[in-house]
């Protein structure tokens, strides 16, 4: 065959397909916007479609990066949108109460309050999931429902507008010719990568998500790990909340971060992290978030009505999930890609017995099948 080993290694890389999708989406724009890839310098700021994709995609990247770790442990966090709203609301309302809204100390203190609130939300989610043993989707539903109410309570139902130069920098300012938020995102992504890959956190997270029982028997304290990832996820959402409110210089308890949890989950899935937990890829998630943002931009630039955005997103969700589903792959491509029961057995016996997934096995002691 003509496929060289190098090419095969490339196509088998876990980022290959997300990158391909991203590149194709970017290229689609060129016939409609010939100068799509050009970047101009105006007033000392870089402008261009690529810059704006990263700029507008920043909050999503942040939230999705946090979500990646939660999903890697086999969980999910639905409350991030609400946390975005709460953080923005608290920070802006504190700043708006200051006599000098641009005072650095006040802004830092306000940011501190906002992020503290995010951490509290994360602790609460982690407590419910790890300590109380509630399913993540249910546990995080609570803040998803109540959080927006809290945010509106803080803003008194109004959209609080502020006028603070230092705060404006986070989401709307420029630094070294680039939007400042790009640096924030880069910093958070870098910290996450260091935190997960330079310490053992990433390994332990993948282990807990990949095989919870084996992790217990190997002595991993999975409760602590889980609480940590929920706090980290909420913290990322908090920073995204700062960015969104800073960009508009306003806190909108009702609409800030609306649907971002769904976009973030989508970004994680596109990035190649399985919703069942286990292996995760921060790089993949960043690309996944960029794919979503590019999709939005593309729909806008090629002249399709922007409102079809959601329909495209739905299509992407379905296609990605179908491609990840072993059953679908078995049906669509024959046995080549499907995980046939028994095909991966070292002992050659079927990998899954019907009884294995039965809920009642919880009440039953050891079962040996010969």
């Amino acid at each position, binding site marked *: 065959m003509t496929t060289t080993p190098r090419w095969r290694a490339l196509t088998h890389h876990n980022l290959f397909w997300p990158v391909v999708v991203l590149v194709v989406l970017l290229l689609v724009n060129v016939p409609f916007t010939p100068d799509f890839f050009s970047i101009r310098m105006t007033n000392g700021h870089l402008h261009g479609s690529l810059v704006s994709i990263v700029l507008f995609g920043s909050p999503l990247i942040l939230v999705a990066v946090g979500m990646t770790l939660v999903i890697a442990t086999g969980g999910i966090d639905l409350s991030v949108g609400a946390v975005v709203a709460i953080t923005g609301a608290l920070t802006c309302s504190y700043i708006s109460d200051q006599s000098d809204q641009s005072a650095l100390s006040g802004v830092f203190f306000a940011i501190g309050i906002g992020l503290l609130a995010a951490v509290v939300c994360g602790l609460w989610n982690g407590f*419910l999931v790890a300590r109380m*043993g*509630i*399913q993540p*989707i*249910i*546990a995080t*539903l*609570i803040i*998803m*429902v*109540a*959080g*927006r*109410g*809290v945010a*509106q*309570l803080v803003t*008194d*139902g109004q959209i609080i507008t502020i006028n603070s130069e230092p705060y404006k920098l986070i989401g709307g300012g420029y630094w070294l010719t680039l939007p400042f938020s790009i640096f924030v995102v880069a910093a958070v992504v870098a910290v996450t990568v260091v935190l997960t890959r330079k310490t053992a956190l990433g390994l332990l997270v993948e282990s807990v998500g990949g095989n919870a029982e084996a992790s*217990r028997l190997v002595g991993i304290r999975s409760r602590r790990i889980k609480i940590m990832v929920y706090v980290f996820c909420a913290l990322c959402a908090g920073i995204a909340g700062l960015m969104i409110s800073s960009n508009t210089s306003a806190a909108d*308890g009702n609409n800030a971060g609306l649907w971002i949890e*769904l976009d973030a*989950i989508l970004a994680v899935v596109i990035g190649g992290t399985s*919703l069942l937990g286990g292996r995760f890829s921060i790089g993949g998630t960043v690309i996944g978030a960029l794919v979503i943002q590019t999709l939005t931009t593309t729909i806008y630039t090629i002249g399709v*009505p922007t*409102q*079809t955005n*959601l*329909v*495209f997103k*739905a299509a992407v*969700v*379905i296609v990605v*999930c*179908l491609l*990840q*589903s072993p*059953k*679908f792959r078995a049906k669509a491509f024959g046995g080549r890609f499907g995980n046939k029961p028994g095909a991966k*057995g070292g002992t050659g*016996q079927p*990998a899954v*017995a*019907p*009884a294995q*997934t*039965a*809920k*009642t*096995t*919880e*009440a*039953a*002691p*050891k*079962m*040996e*099948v*010969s």
Partner: protein
Amino acid sequence: MSTTTTTKRPPAPDSRTPSKAAQLLGDRRLPVLVTAGLFLAMYVAGLSRYQNYGFGEAQVFMNLFIDNGYLLVAAVGVTFVILSGGIDLSVGSVIGFTTMFTAWLVERQGLPILVVIPMALAVGAFGGFLMGYVIHNFEIQPFIVTLAGLFLFRGLCLVISKESISIGDSSVSSMAGAQVNLGAGFLSIGAIVALVVLAVAFYVLHYTRFGRRVYAVGGNEQSAMLMGLPQGGTKIAVYTISGFCSALAGLLFTLYIQSGDPLHATGMELDAIAAVVIGGTLLTGGSGYVIGTLFGVLVLGLIKSIIQFEGTLSSWWTKIATGVLLCAFILIQRAMTARKKT
């Protein structure tokens, strides 16, 4: 192959007949009773506090049904899904889509409402069927599939029109305005339909083989299969029912608000799920009553009414109160299931 289940084995119970206290805690009706009690307590508290403002009038009570009929219908559909152990996030979008679809067909295409109603219901049911089909046949988590449904239907709303379409059709207005007098007060057509849906759902869940299969699948899908029950068909059917109920809720919402808007009912799936959970249905499936869902909806409705009567309280307290109730009931459920396991 060999597996070992490692979860703790229940200590051998010393007696076959559970104690009274254990029976009470283990009783599946307890959460419904708690919710009904909560509703009564809130109602009485409202009575004593706002008596002079007309809270005691029968019509205030009737309005709970009139103002929340669509939510009740949607929540009934979600009850089926949750009882079977699934979840449906597409409810709000399907409702929003139905309002747009109906308004567009009636206003822009000039179709009579009586033709549009079956079309809208069919579209909702078909959407639900598709989601159920994908969930069952490709074994993808319901959460993700119905999330795609959420995007799809909301997107379709916007494809129809970005703008709100108000309905001026006279037959729609007369339907919307129709009142059924009950002596002390009146109910709207929407409220009547909602109560009928509730009654039908109750009958189906408790008096048909299909209904019991929904419980069986939610209790233990694997067992249901080994007992020879068609668990796949049951799962597809509950999502179809939920899609149908959402579309019906969308029609009621259209009547209630007399317009179609691409942003109608945004996030209503959360209200519906919250109502179901507050009504005592276990989110893990297999346990709960559709009557509980009624009380869940009424509690949510009553919170809104009380906040209106209070005057100084703002609408976001509804969300906070809903969240707090949701949290309380999830913890109660957790305590109950934990008890059963040990």
